[in-house]
């Protein structure tokens, strides 16, 4: 396990390994999406209070979970890069950022679309919505800082500090609905009691969450491969790969 982890730290090995796994995980994501959407939009019962409108949770909730999970993943990768100076970890952190930012946008937009008919407003400055918006700005700040510095190793180090500091926001997002009076409702699934959702609605929600995770994993690996090729373009292994793939 440990040696395998060490080998993943070698760019050519990682490139080849990610190239093998990304398509498989991608196929898994497609299957999960197909089943999750069918189950969620067709098979799941309507809600007693919200009618059909509640079905947006099958996108909104996984997107919001991913926005936080990807951030932690990105920050951990960045920290590994910072501490162990591992090139692949730096690349992984950089590759995760735009994906996390888009998940955040998706969560904010779907939440807003649901909020207008249900709450009666597109947006309120309550603690949950505000801290999620802050998460988007953290992602954008990370991306901007990373892009602003020409030299890739320095860019990785500087932006890693930002990513690591921003982790403080993650528990704030999660607990905001419990610490303060917010318009956003409390947690339905991620709480100590049993989930407050009917099992026929819970299963498609979990399927969609797994689909989002698989989608992220596949695209993340693909993006990291691309980043690695560009960063290592002068190295011999990249030239060998290019020679092989162009025949």
């Amino acid at each position, binding site marked *: 396990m440990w040696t395998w982890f060490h080998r993943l730290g070698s760019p050519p090995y990682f490139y080849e390994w990610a190239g093998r796994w990304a398509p498989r995980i991608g196929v898994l994501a497609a299957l999960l999406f197909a089943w999750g959407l069918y189950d969620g939009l067709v098979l799941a019962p*309507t809600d007693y209070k919200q009618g059909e409108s509640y079905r947006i949770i099958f996108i909104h909730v996984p997107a919001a979970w991913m926005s936080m999970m990807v951030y932690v993943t990105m920050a951990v990768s960045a920290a590994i890069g910072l501490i162990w100076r591992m090139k692949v970890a730096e690349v992984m952190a950089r590759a995760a950022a735009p994906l996390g930012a888009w998940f955040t946008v998706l969560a904010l937009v779907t939440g807003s679309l649901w909020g207008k008919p*249900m709450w009666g407003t597109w947006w*309120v400055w309550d603690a949950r919505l505000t801290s999620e918006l802050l998460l988007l700005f953290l992602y954008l700040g990370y991306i901007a800082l990373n892009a602003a510095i020409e030299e890739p190793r320095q860019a990785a180090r500087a932006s890693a500090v930002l990513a690591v500091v921003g982790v403080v926001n993650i528990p*704030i997002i999660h607990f905001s609905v419990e610490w*303060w*009076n917010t318009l956003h*409702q409390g947690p339905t699934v991620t709480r100590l009691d049993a989930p*407050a959702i*009917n099992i026929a*609605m819970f299963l498609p929600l979990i399927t969609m969450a797994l689909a989002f995770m698989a989608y992220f994993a596949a695209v993340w690996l693909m993006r990291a491969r691309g980043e690695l090729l560009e960063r290592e373009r002068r190295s011999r292994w990249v030239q060998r790969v290019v020679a092989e793939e162009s025949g």
Partner: protein
Amino acid sequence: MKPARRNRLILVLLLVGGVGVAVALMLSAFRENMLYFYPPSQVVSGEAPTGYPFRMGGMVADGSVRHGEGVNVHFQVTDGGASVPVRYEGVLPDLFGEGQGVVVRGRLSADGTFTAEEVLAKHDENYMPPEVADAMKDGKAAQTVSEGGE
């Protein structure tokens, strides 16, 4: 672990810990200002601001909704302890109803009536099909009857 790496690891942990403590202190200092709304019992006991608009959140009391002319509506907002009468003129959100969570923004008049400029419905964390909701309601009703009709 090599000393250089260990030092960097400690530095990163200190950074996260330090920022975490700083943010925790800041949030506890701003605790009151982070509240999105006040519950009716705090409004009745005079803890809510009187000079300027604020938000009040609670449940719409059962049997309290009265529709007046046009889009005029009166209802009571309660948190189980106290309740405050609310007057509102405007379109209500889909989820608005008796027994539903609600957040109203407006001013408190001298006679204790809250004049709302905006009414938002607050959703709870429960999701279930209508049959289950009915069954649960029947179950609860049966329970209260057996407990002596409280």
